[in-house]
């Protein structure tokens, strides 16, 4: 990693300040250990998640573009987003403005009302995971591992928005970079065919039947392949799979207890950072039993193992 390349513009997004503070905390701690500087873009606003676009396109793009404009004005060339939804929105606004001059003109007219301007492509928008594996690299990461995650079986869950619609050369159906990263940390990676399937997105809010079925499929598949935990790169995925797990169990009569952690949390643990500092404990479905396996004693003692997967009842169609 070259010296001048370790400072980045940083767009945490709303989730990392609240529902996914564990992601934010662990990212900051891991960056510290790796000697990366993440400069938070001053006065950034919400990217609109998946909602704003359903109301009106120009305001939605303008909302996003304000962030692009601020970041560029604050002298950033690369902006890192840990949240897959923010990443997608920021990137899509940038790409669409570059590709469609009419859109670019309108969005810039709106920005102008706030005294701002943005030239498409003046920022390179990247996901935190991409930055970790490409810029930092597996080798450097391996060098920092002091407590390998040996014995831990993880299912790498990418979700939708980090690899789709189109991203920097990663396979949109079956990416492997998170898998490799987890292997670098010493974990065992299980095959997880649903690794890029949907977590339900905002459907948990508006149609539980739809969303919980999607969550059930993911939990079922991860359990099927013997994963101790699911590791994610997106606050929405984490929230849906973690916080709604009890309700999913209630709806389907299942009893999954699969912890859902952020990849940066596992990086932190492997780097030997104390568990609390990487936000452990914030999860609703406790990760303590799983982590007990790899000797993080400061966590609560392991609970009895869940029933084996064969006895999990299947829902009726």
């Amino acid at each position: 990693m070259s010296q001048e390349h370790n400072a980045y513009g940083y767009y945490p997004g709303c989730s990392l300040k609240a529902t996914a503070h564990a992601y934010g905390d662990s990212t900051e701690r891991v960056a510290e250990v790796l000697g990366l500087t993440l400069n938070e873009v001053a006065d950034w606003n919400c990217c609109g998640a998946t909602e704003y676009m359903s109301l009106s396109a120009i305001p939605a793009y303008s909302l996003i573009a304000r962030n692009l404009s601020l970041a560029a004005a604050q002298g950033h060339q690369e902006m890192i987003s840990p949240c897959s939804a923010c990443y997608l929105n920021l990137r899509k606004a940038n790409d669409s403005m570059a590709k469609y001059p009419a859109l670019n003109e309108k969005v810039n007219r709106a920005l102008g009302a706030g005294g701002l301007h943005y030239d498409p492509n003046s920022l390179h928008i990247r996901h935190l995971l991409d930055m970790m594996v490409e810029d930092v690299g597996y080798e450097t990461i391996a060098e920092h591992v002091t407590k390998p995650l040996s014995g831990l079986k993880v299912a790498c869950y990418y979700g939708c928005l980090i690899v789709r619609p189109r991203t920097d050369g990663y396979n949109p159906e079956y990416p492997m970079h998170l898998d490799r990263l987890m292997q670098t940390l010493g974990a065992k990676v299980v095959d997880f065919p649903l690794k890029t399937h949907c977590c339900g997105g905002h459907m948990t809010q508006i149609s539980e039947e739809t969303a919980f079925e999607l969550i059930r499929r993911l939990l079922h598949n991860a359990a099927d392949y013997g994963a101790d935990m699911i590791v994610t790169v997106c606050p929405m995925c984490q929230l849906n799979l973690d916080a709604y797990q009890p309700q999913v169990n209630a709806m389907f009569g299942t009893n999954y207890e699969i912890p859902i952690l952020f990849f940066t949390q596992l990086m932190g643990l492997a780097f030997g950072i104390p568990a609390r500092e990487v936000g452990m404990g914030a999860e609703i479905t406790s990760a303590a039993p799983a982590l007990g396996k790899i000797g993080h004693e400061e966590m609560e003692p392991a609970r009895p193992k869940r029933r084996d997967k064969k006895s999990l009842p299947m829902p009726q169609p």
Partner: protein
Amino acid sequence: MMEDRIGVYVCHCGHNIAGTVDVEHVAEWAASLPGVAIARDYKFMCSSLGQELVEKDIQELGLTGVVVAACSPHMHEPTFRRACERAGLNRYLLEMANIREHASWVHQHDVESATEKAKSLISGAVRRVMELEPLEPFMVDINDATMVVGGGVAGINAALELANAGHPVYLVERDPSIGGHMAQFDKTFPTLDCSACILTPRMFDAGNHPNITLLSYSEVEQVDGYVGNFTVRVRQKARHVDTELCTGCGDCWEKCPAKVVDQEYEAGLGYRTAIYRPFPQAVPKYPVIDEESCIYYQKGTCKACEKFCPTGAIDFDQQDTEIVLNVGNIVLATGYDLFDPRRVPQYGYGRLANVFTSLEFERMLNAAGPTDGKVVLRDGITEPKSVAVVHCVGSRDENYNPYCSAVCCMAALKFGHLVKERTGADVTSFYIDIRTTAKNYEEFYHRLLKEEMEFIRGRVAEVTDAARMPGEEGKLIVQVEDTLIGKQRRIPVDMVILMAAMEPRNDATDVAHTFGIGCSEAGFFTEKHPKLDPVATMTDGVFIAGVCQGPKDIPDSVSQGAAAAARVLTLIGQGTIAIEPVRANIDEEHCSGCRICNNLCPYTAIEYLPDLEVSRVNPALCKGCGTCVAACPSQVITGQHFTFDSIMAQIEGVLYDTYNGNGYVSVEHEVPLATG
């Protein structure tokens, strides 16, 4: 200097030009251009009456040059050149102004713009034709030997047609045996003839024909020359088997301890030894040693094959040989590669054991294949009870190949029939459209409907082993929208066959470049005319046949092989051919001997004569690109037919209406649809 008397002929092309360009006005205007003796407009210039008009004017008015404002020169330049010649005007004193492809058809519904553009192009042509000089084409003899590259069914047939007509043929095949893809199949649609039964006799004939020299395990390295006189360098790879001694007995490969997966002939479904003959009917019958997998080449010991060979044919020291051939014509029949379905990860190929490619499945069906023709899962024993056939894998998809591969619908039906015949399993085809367009093909589809093959209209979204519902465990689940019902469905099956696209060979662009021909965007070789000259290319003397030109089935590949042979026979029959005198020419008197041109010529056609201290162009090697012409600082190289003066005049001509002419045109014109 003789006074210019130019005739200008503005073609209507029915409505094609006249519908957009005001041809009468253009002709009137052209008549007023300096040097123009006559201008006419006519409905169809290329018709015999149109050509007669030109001929009559040349003779009666003593024209010194002709401009035909019509279609592309690539369409009718030869037609009008012949007309000029018939009337006694040198054929190179003709110029075409392309007011169809370059004006009327691209500025449709905008008469004003199209008309202005036509005028500018005609003005350029008129100015240019005044600067042209009479030239004589070179006459060259046609060598009656032909090289056929690629020994698939298309190449074999081309070679046999030529050889049967009594002419020498070199059949160059890259693999150890000829046969191509057809040799891998068990049955061929729609008649279900046994592939080996119909192909093997042809292969044998090609291998034993007195007029055919078979160069197997060989590749073309370099091609020089031009129609009638190509010089080709071929590299024959070392087989490490002396074909003079080998009898094809097979003792060597029986004893060879090195077993590897056969990615070529068995499409990855079976094994072969390091010394191997791809299949029993291979032509030639001799084995080859694959150095990569041979223990002796990798580790230095073994030589079992040598020990057991009864004739002492094994030769570990054999080297590649270079062969130089002189041929008059070349037929390319290099076929296709199968699309690698790993590129469509949602179909699970390479990850899910019981997902197969169509070619793997062909090998499975083959009685001489790895499973002796039994239809079984990857475990080698279990017969599937249900099979899904997925259409359009890598075809009809902008992410991979936009074209339709033309044969896979029929091959899918063939698979349906054979699976049912051999296992009684349920077979479901997942299709977008069933394409069965040739003779007896639709009838075959109807037959499969009656044989109870299932058809679900919908392009498969994904194939997964992630069970979601009871009944799905342990199965492959094909998820699809049944578009005729409008609902998502999940069909559990035991086996999935992916009907992968036929793609251009991975080296197709390199091969095209070696032979000086073009490739389509997809990578298939470009024909001279898609309808009227489908087996010729833009390079005279180089022909194409079979799937290398575009996806097609065996009957069409065979027809093209024969058609290419017929085109070659026409040239051989003529004995000589006129070739374009578009060549460079150095005025040695004024050459400063700076030698700048020498290294620029891509064909090393320019030699330096040290005693005279000048450079000279060898016209037999020069191809007329003009690179040297543009580079000579003393401006003493003339590019015949594209001389400095003629191009400068044409520039002035097309800009006749700018401030050096009559003033700029001021019409507004149509904006075509902006992209995006």
